[in-house]
């Protein structure tokens, strides 16, 4: 039980004034930069800048002080009351049982002053989350605990009337008991994760970066290579090759560097704690995020890996909680990038009680995937080959050899697609080089769709798509009979399920 007494309205940490001041300054930063850049061209403007900007900053600083002074928060019974506003005064009351999740975050400025933001996400209208931006971390943690406590209390009160949910109360006392650190990334692990990122993906970011900075070096590169071209006209083709080789090396190095940097920024000191009713994740180098995801809200978990990452024995997991207010911005963060096999198993059983992998699964038709790959490839291979034939005749038909790897890869992909299910869980596996594994509790399904185009009908194949509150996942090219069995069985699971899905 928390001893925090917040029945009287309270202000935040006074250092918060600085946070507000810097926030307000940031709002006019663009204006500031613009005037400086104009000012550097025309020194006379500096005078106007002085006249304009300095009083503006004074006003903003004063404004920040009043923002701080007028911001109070209070916890009365089971309501959080926040008053704020300088010109327009605002009073917000949030009943504790409406609170969906509470996050503690801190950006660079806040970290310098060792303050944090407490963000309260309610299930109301979108993007309408409340923020208390300047609290000490220990205080924020206490406040968070207090709010959750009040939330549970209101639920218990309701639970006494409603006998349908006996598990809730027994779990309550367990909350404190179980607290298991699932992952705590060391620097070595972090480097491993960074090096085994999907470089193809980050490579595209690198590519955008290279093209962005290309114009700066264009002149230099052109001068350098035009010298080559002039002197060794016959080596033009060679120089072209060298350029490509150079480009590839730059591309590879950039990809790896960017992957590393991104990994350090996002996953520095990542710590995941498994509690009996929630998962807590704190991560980040400059901007530290603390997330608490109620296990009930998790709709499905998606594990993925790549050959490199498998080599170091890691796979990553992405948690998909149901979409609610403010969730969209949070989406990308709920990823645990490095899980060993036993940690994956722990996560699975932690999130999904009594989870067992289904022993048998329905496979997809691998040949259908191969056909699909061939059809898609034809859209660009045939025109390319035709154009090539028009210009270079027979040798260009070697382009058609591309069919072999494409069809092979599609076939291998399809061979690894399957959907398994047991009493409670659906497990979808797909992919060969980048295998993905999805675990989805059957009763969390929102709706289901069966798709079959006119060509699939002839072959008695079909796709099944499962919709959940956190997005949909589909399994393609199942046999029609199995698809219908799956469809009917999952509907039965949902319709016979009593109680909440969230």
């Amino acid at each position, binding site marked *: 039980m928390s001893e925090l007494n917040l029945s009287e309205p309270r202000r935040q940490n006074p250092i918060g004034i600085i946070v507000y001041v810097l926030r307000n300054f940031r709002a006019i930063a663009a204006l500031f930069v613009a005037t400086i850049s104009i000012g550097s061209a025309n020194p006379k403007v500096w005078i106007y800048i002085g006249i304009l900007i300095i009083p503006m900053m004074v006003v903003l600083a004063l404004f920040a002080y009043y923002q701080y002074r007028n911001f109070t928060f209070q916890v009365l019974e089971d309501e959080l009351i926040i008053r704020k506003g300088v010109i327009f005064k605002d009073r917000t009351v949030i009943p504790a049982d409406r609170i969906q999740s509470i996050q503690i975050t801190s950006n660079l400025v806040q970290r310098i002053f060792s303050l944090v933001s407490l963000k309260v996400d309610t299930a109301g209208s979108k993007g309408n989350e409340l923020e208390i931006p300047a609290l000490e971390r220990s205080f924020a943690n206490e406040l968070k605990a207090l709010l959750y406590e009040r939330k549970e209390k209101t639920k218990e009160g309701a639970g006494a009337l409603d006998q349908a949910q006996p598990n809730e109360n027994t779990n309550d006392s367990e909350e404190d008991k179980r607290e298991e650190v699932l992952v705590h990334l060391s620097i070595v692990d972090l480097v491993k994760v960074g090096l085994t990122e999907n470089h193809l993906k980050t490579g595209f970011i690198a590519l955008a970066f290279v093209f962005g900075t290309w114009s700066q070096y264009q002149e230099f590169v052109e001068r350098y290579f035009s010298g080559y071209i002039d002197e060794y006209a016959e080596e033009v083709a060679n120089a072209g090759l060298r350029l490509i080789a150079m480009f590839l090396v730059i591309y590879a190095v950039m990809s790896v560097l960017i992957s590393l940097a991104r990994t350090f920024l996002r996953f520095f000191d990542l710590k995941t704690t498994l509690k009996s009713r929630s998962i807590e994740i704190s991560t980040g180098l400059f901007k530290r995020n603390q997330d608490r995801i109620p296990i009930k809200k998790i709709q499905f978990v998606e594990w993925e890996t790549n050959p490199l990452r498998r080599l170091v024995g890691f796979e990553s997991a992405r948690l998909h909680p149901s979409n609610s207010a403010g969730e969209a911005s949070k989406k990308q963060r709920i990823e645990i990038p490095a899980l060993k096999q036993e940690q994956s198993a722990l996560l699975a059983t932690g999130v999904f009680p009594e989870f067992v992998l289904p022993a048998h699964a*329905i496979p997809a038709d691998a040949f259908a995937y191969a056909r699909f790959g061939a059809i898609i490839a034809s859209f660009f291979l045939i025109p390319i080959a035709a154009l090539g034939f028009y210009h270079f005749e027979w040798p260009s038909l070697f382009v058609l050899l591309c069919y072999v790897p494409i069809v092979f890869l599609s076939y291998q992909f399809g061979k690894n697609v399957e959907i398994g299910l*047991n009493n409670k869980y659906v497990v979808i596996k797909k992919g060969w080089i980048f295998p993905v594994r999805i675990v989805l509790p059957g009763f969390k399904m929102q709706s289901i769709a*069966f798709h079959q185009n006119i060509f699939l009908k002839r072959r008695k194949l079909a796709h099944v798509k499962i919709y959940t509150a956190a997005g949909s996942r589909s399994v393609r090219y199942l046999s029609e009979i199995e698809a219908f069995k799956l*469809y009917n069985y999952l509907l039965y699971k949902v319709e016979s399920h009593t109680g909440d899905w969230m």
Partner: protein
Amino acid sequence: METVWENLDVEIGQLPKVEDVYFQRHPIRYRSYRMVVASIWWGIVVVGATVLGIALPEWWTLLVGSAVLILVGLTFFGIHIGYRKRSYALRQLDLTYRKGWLFYSITTIPFNRIQHTDVSQGPLERKFALCTLSIYTAGGSTSDLSIPGLEEDEAQQLRDFIAKKAASYE
């Protein structure tokens, strides 16, 4: 290949089959409605293509013209054939809608997952005295199901029925 289902608490074969349910079709004027909508859309495209055809060299005109013709033909044929496929089925616990000739699909929403429903009617729909019933789940906009081309009172009845069913799970 015979697949084995593990530890299921029911006999799969005994479950009610969605494919065997009685499906209710739309009133026949819904087909005319779709034809009118398609005519308006394709009218715009044909005008655009004609303008393009005047501007482009002759063999391009032929190419674009024949492509538009084929697509128009497919659309109207699809509407004609697809009318027989478009139908909905109501069961005790869920609502199913199926549609599509080239791309056939069946979607089922269990009543205990429905968030809310509404009935809407556009200006052209009003001319045909047709309504659209939209059903929303927590699955976001992607999982919403809308059943167009319902008789006005049919849509109301359906909505009331579904709303009552959905509310019973609260």
